[in-house]
């Protein structure tokens, strides 16, 4: 399975944020998007996720589920955690598991989704399952957002500043999750400044238009 | 007992107002009891997970701290 994007260009508020972006990612590989602030890393992820229509170029997934759009192959984890404080941690996770659709293929993607309790244990917040999400700390909220990626099997992970608000132990846990995802045939595209120590990792550097 | 029976032409109004009053008071009372039961079970479940109150709190590490009455009474 391959994620392909040809000369992507994106406008925001009438300003050309980036142009001529080309990327192609095989399954089982990771891509780090770097560049100075405001160069459009987040916008690129949102274009790949299908949340924003690109001004030029297009995004395609080869070998994926034909009926599903590229966006439906992707998990998107942005700065906001999509958590409802009034609901409990388990309720939040159960909702997203039932609500997010999972593409049928690609068969080659081996990471089976795990049920909520196991997902919470893997991100290390199994003990707060019944507490309202309002009582979680910032780090715990990020971990819950990561748990959402585990409960529905989508091959591509689009992570925007994944290591923000995470302490050293959590960051190491996140890297281990990403490694498992990539080894199982998934793809990770992360917009971040810290290097990701995953083995097949390539880097896309966005330059500010001079 | 005759006084009870002849509530006059407007017996319906009298009985319904007493009925509504009884229903409201009983509803309030039952709601408070149910609320209490829900809270006590939630508290006991948390206690069972070894979470202590500040006053009864022993170091979180060794969960076997002295078990003080958490004052939940009857």
């Amino acid at each position, binding site marked *: 399975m391959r994620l392909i994007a040809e000369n992507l260009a994106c406008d925001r508020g009438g300003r050309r944020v980036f142009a001529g972006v080309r990327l192609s990612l095989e399954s089982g590989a990771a891509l780090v998007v770097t560049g100075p602030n405001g160069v459009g890393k987040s916008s690129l992820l949102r274009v790949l996720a299908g949340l924003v229509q690109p001004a030029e170029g297009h995004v395609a997934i080869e070998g994926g589920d034909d009926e599903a759009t590229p966006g439906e192959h992707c998990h998107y984890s942005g700065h906001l955690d999509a958590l409802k404080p009034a609901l409990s941690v388990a309720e939040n996770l159960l909702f997203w598991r039932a609500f997010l659709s999972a593409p049928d293929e690609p068969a080659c993607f081996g990471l089976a989704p795990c049920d909520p309790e196991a997902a919470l244990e893997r991100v290390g917040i199994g003990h707060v399952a019944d507490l309202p999400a309002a009582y979680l700390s910032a780090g715990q909220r990020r971990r819950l957002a990561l748990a959402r990626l585990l409960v529905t099997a989508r091959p591509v992970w689009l992570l925007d500043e994944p290591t923000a608000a995470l302490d050293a132990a959590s960051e190491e846990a996140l890297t281990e999750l990403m490694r498992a995802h990539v080894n199982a045939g998934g793809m990770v595209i992360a917009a971040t400044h810290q290097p990701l120590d995953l083995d097949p990792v390539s880097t896309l550097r966005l330059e500010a238009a001079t | 007992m005759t006084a009870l029976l002849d509530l006059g*032409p407007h017996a319906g109004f009298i009985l319904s107002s007493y009925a509504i009053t009884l229903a409201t008071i009983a509803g309030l009372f039952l709601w408070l009891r149910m609320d209490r039961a829900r809270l006590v079970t939630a508290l006991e479940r948390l206690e069972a997970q070894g979470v202590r109150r500040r006053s009864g709190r022993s170091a979180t590490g060794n969960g076997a701290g002295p078990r003080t009455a958490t004052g939940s009474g009857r």
Partner: protein
Amino acid sequence: MAIADLANPTRFMALSGRLLPWLGIACALAFAAGLYMTFFVAPDDYQQGATVKIMFLHVPAAWLAMMCYSVMAVSALGTLIWKHPLADVSARAAAPIGAAFTFLSLITGSLWGKPMWGTYWVWDARLTSVLVLFIMYLGLIALWRTVEDPIRAGKATAVLTLVGAINLPIIKFSVDWWNTLHQPASVVRLDGPAIHPTILWPLLVMALAFTLLFFTLHMMAMRNEVLRRRLRTLQLGAASARTATARPQAAE
């Protein structure tokens, strides 16, 4: 019970735990006596006939509606000025009970009004200000339910309660100021009660029964509120405490 030693929630829970059964029994006895006197002792009114029996519910309920608001106003002062830790617990516990009594006084009043005045509702001063009181109770409950943190919610509702307290004298004297359809105050008057003892006594007993009922329900609600606060702090503690020791693999 000096207010001071009630300040500590744990001691309040222990104290109220012992007091509650007795309060409940006293309330039940008072109701039994009141209902017996209402139905068997009190004569029918020469004009209204038996419908006067609704008065034994309507008047106590109206008194309790206003007394409950006074309790909330005092609690509001306790929260804002004396910083009493249980004051906002008492205010939050009293609001639904006050709303229930106001609702009862409105319902029994309109059920009494239909046979006597011919309509369930008329827009006159006293009924309207009791309806406004009902809306204020619901507003306070709504404010309690929307503000997440109980301490902040306590302060906000305390301010609103005190501002609303201005409405209480308006109800009490509304009958005299606007000499309207509604019957003028006939019990608590400057020159003493104007009704016959055989009706007055059941009324006072029912009023006592309602007051005891209020204190019983209020104490139960306060105990629930203390438990709810305790649960909230426990949950907050549970969320933060374990992270310090939890490692990604199996948490103990």
